[in-house]
């Protein structure tokens, strides 16, 4: 039996308006080298001026991750030469990170798990190198972006757990609006370290894996690495402490550098930025910006609302979705209905019309009204869906307005419906004949006519019953 120890080093690009030490806007996807200035290009004489929003989001993250927040924090210079680093030192934090010794709870298959956080620290991002044949191009748009590094303890015990944790972490940073959590664009990056050892023997030799740009790759690379290390162990061969690169094409990790080549970063305190001592007002602002985190929400939805793990996860995963769900409930929609409408029709409409639940396109009160009308049979479910879609299409936020425009109303009584049905049957005797002969396909055809004639206002079950009576057929069920 072996034991697996996995730790993650996660970098998130903080959603600050400007870069961490200069006033360049943080926008991705721009033309290369258009979001740069003398400061982030490392011209002689420039100085870093730390962005307070970046410090705020760092403290917010530290608080959400239950870290001990630094009463005084400062930056250090991490010295190394690399072409994408304009100053050839990175302004980072070494001896006084924003937060230390925290933890994050997450749910794995409905079970609450905890991973401890070693530290979180604020630093600047590097530029990007684009290799073209035998030369390289440099794009410094990203250089100097605010980056927060979160280092976990090696407590994850399987590649799957690492994947689930990372997804949960992504959900957390999005919930706090600290980072957009996008792994493809590199807003969220993750390096993993893993060691395998015989059960009860403690940590093995640590191997670091880089170049993991999706949570799936994190799992796949770790699976590969666990297999590789286990095999070495079985063969009685040593695992070398090294850094390995995940190769997506081959599905393997490849050696990048060994410990012997490890660098001495010659850290020393950054003399250009005075230490930051958060004021009481600053810390209060941090506390008041904290919100219920996705894992806690998910657990509450399961326990309080009796939702399934899957539904609870879906609703709690995104903050705006969770808040919308709760607003539906507080405005009077039943829990089950609220969950079903969000997962079903609203998700479909969002996909079709690309709007967000929090942007006011469909105010929760309006949806509650529509859902309530289906309960009182003022609208059929079909009509309710149509009302919501028309609201989005027409930019109307009052459902009553759409209902009036469409002339939707509950069919007054069976008498009126019966009249419509007998008229339709009389006009389609062939179809009626076929139904009597057992061809039930024609029922759908006639039902379509009925619904069209009643402008969808008929209750389909009632209409079907009356239609079959009119034709002279027994109800099938």
């Amino acid at each position, binding site marked *: 039996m072996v034991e697996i120890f996995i730790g993650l080093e996660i970098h998130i690009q903080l959603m600050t308006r400007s870069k961490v030490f200069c006033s360049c806007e943080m926008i991705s996807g721009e033309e290369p080298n258009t979001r740069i200035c003398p400061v982030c290009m490392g011209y002689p004489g420039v*100085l870093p001026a730390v962005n307070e929003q970046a410090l705020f989001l760092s403290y917010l993250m530290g608080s959400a991750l239950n870290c001990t927040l630094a009463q005084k924090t400062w930056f250090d210079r991490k010295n190394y030469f690399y072409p994408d680093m304009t100053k050839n030192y990175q302004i980072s934090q070494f001896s006084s990170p924003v937060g230390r010794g925290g933890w994050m709870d997450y749910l794995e298959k409905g079970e609450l798990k905890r991973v401890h956080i070693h530290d979180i620290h604020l630093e600047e991002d590097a530029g990007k190198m684009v290799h073209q044949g035998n030369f390289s191009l440099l794009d410094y748009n990203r250089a100097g972006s605010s980056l927060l590094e979160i280092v976990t303890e090696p407590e994850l015990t399987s590649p799957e757990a690492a994947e689930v944790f990372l997804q949960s972490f992504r959900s957390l940073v999005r919930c706090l609006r600290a980072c957009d959590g996008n792994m493809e664009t590199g807003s969220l990056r993750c390096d993993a370290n893993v060691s395998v050892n015989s059960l009860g023997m403690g940590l093995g030799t640590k191997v670091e894996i880089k170049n993991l740009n999706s949570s799936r790759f994190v799992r796949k690379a770790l699976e590969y690495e666990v297999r590789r290390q286990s095999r070495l162990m079985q063969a009685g061969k040593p695992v070398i402490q090294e850094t390995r690169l995940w190769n997506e094409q081959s599905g393997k990790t490849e050696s990048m550098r060994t410990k012997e080549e490890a660098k001495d970063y010659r850290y020393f305190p950054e*003399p250009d930025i*005075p230490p930051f001592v958060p004021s009481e007002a600053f810390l209060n602002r941090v506390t008041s910006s904290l919100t219920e985190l996705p894992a806690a929400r998910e657990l509450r939805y399961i326990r309080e609302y009796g939702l399934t793990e899957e539904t609870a996860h879906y609703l709690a995963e995104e903050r705006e979705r969770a808040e919308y769900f709760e607003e539906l409930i507080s405005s009077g929609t039943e829990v089950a209905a609220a969950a079903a409408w969000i997962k079903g029709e609203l998700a479909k409409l969002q996909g079709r019309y690309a709007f967000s639940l929090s942007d006011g396109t469909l105010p929760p009160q309006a949806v509650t009204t529509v859902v309530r009308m289906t309960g009182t049979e003022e609208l059929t479910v079909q009509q309710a869906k149509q009302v919501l879609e028309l609201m989005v299409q027409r930019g109307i936020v009052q459902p009553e307005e759409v209902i009036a425009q469409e002339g939707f109303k509950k069919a007054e009584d069976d008498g009126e419906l019966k009249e419509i049905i007998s008229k339709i049957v009389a006009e389609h005797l062939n179809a009626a004949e076929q139904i009597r002969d057992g061809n039930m396909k024609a029922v759908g055809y006639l039902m379509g006519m009925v619904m069209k004639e009643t402008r969808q206002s008929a209750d389909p079950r009632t209409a079907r019953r009356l239609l079959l009576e009119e034709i002279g057929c027994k109800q099938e069920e």
Partner: protein
Amino acid sequence: MSELFPAVWKQITSSPRHLKCYEQAVAALDTDTCAFLELRTDLGVSLAEPAVKEYGSLSGIPFAVKDNIAVKGFQFSCGSQILAGLRSPYTATAVERLLHAGAVPIGKTNLDEFGMGSSNQNSACKPTVNPWDLSRVPGGSSGGSAAAVSAGYVPFALGSDTGGSVRQPAAFCGIFGFKPTYGTVSRYGLAAYASSLETIGFMTAQAEQLIPIFEAASGADGRDQTSLDCSDTTDLTEGIQTVAVLAGDLGLDAPVLRGYSKAIEAFRSLGWNIVEVKLPSLDYAVPSYYTIASAEASANLARYTGVRYGSRSREEHDHQHMVRRTRDEGFGKEVKLRILLGTYVLREGFQDQYYVQAQKIRTLIRNEFSKLFTKAGVLLLPTFPIQAFPIGDGGLTSMQQKLADRFTLPANLAGLPAVSFPTGIESGLPVGMQLMGPAMSDRSLIRLTAHVSRCFPEVALPRRFSPGEVTHG
């Protein structure tokens, strides 16, 4: 303030014809002094703000800028081959503020490469010489600025002072050199050598002229988070007037010792008490300073690789090779020495022995000064133990120069204001003495310097250029 600077300067800078004559005259005179690395009056005037050029507190006054301070459009060589060809894309805050007061930057002056040196002989360009004696050094590293003021090319100049780089050349050239309290003048735009020690400083022919310049250039700046307003209203001439002097033999050359004695005499004649003090930690100032300065320099100079600007080696097999070659070809000996020293003291496992130890000494020195300034208003001490020395082998070795910095370094280690002022001519060359005051006493320290200076006969500078020539000719 207008009477502080001759009105003729404004006449020159407001007439394109005069300006051209002025530039030509200075350029011709400077062929042997080599104070300027670049002289571009047209560029300076184009940066000036028309409205304030007319009415600002330094309206129309031309000034020179040490070439390690950014002025948009001007070259920005830092006296180094590695930055050959670089034109600054921006302007330093201090220069911007002087522009806002109406002053006109007209050129960039020579320096020891990246400010490392005290003779100007470490410049990658032709070294500046002392206008008093062309066979002697002007001091450094702000030697070009000192020579430019001393020779009368400009009424004032900016320098930078990391360990005495404004004060020592001022003493060598017979002018005033002021190093403000750390942080009162923004460092934004000053090419970093040792960030925690250096400040931009000012050089003038008269002490009073420093006041409007400091007023205009100082103050908190959002682009330098170590900057702050100099809001203190200390009056050093108030109350019990006590000047501290260092006890014991200071190891001064005879002419400097004569200047020193005259300065003590001057204070006595003004009715001040003289107290002898001992500052034991000063013995460690030189090693502490060079440890910290080199450590910071090793990181500060890492950005010069030829990748984004400046000169790049022609040998470029790969990035690493290119960077190595560029730095090897681009940096001078003294710079390489300090980078290596700095890299050495910051190595993992050796920091406690060197860097941390040096910071502890620095704290001790600071504390000693705080204590001293509860007993005395100011400290009087020599600027440099000898006068301007000869160029070349007859001068001081690089090591001797470092040891001789012992009187100027403490102000940088403690972040305190200090002024070097001329006490007259001894053996044919100027001698400078230094006044150090408590933090934020800058304005008062300048006024006190002006007051004390009146006890000395005015030094007749070796003015090679007089602005009157331009307007009359």
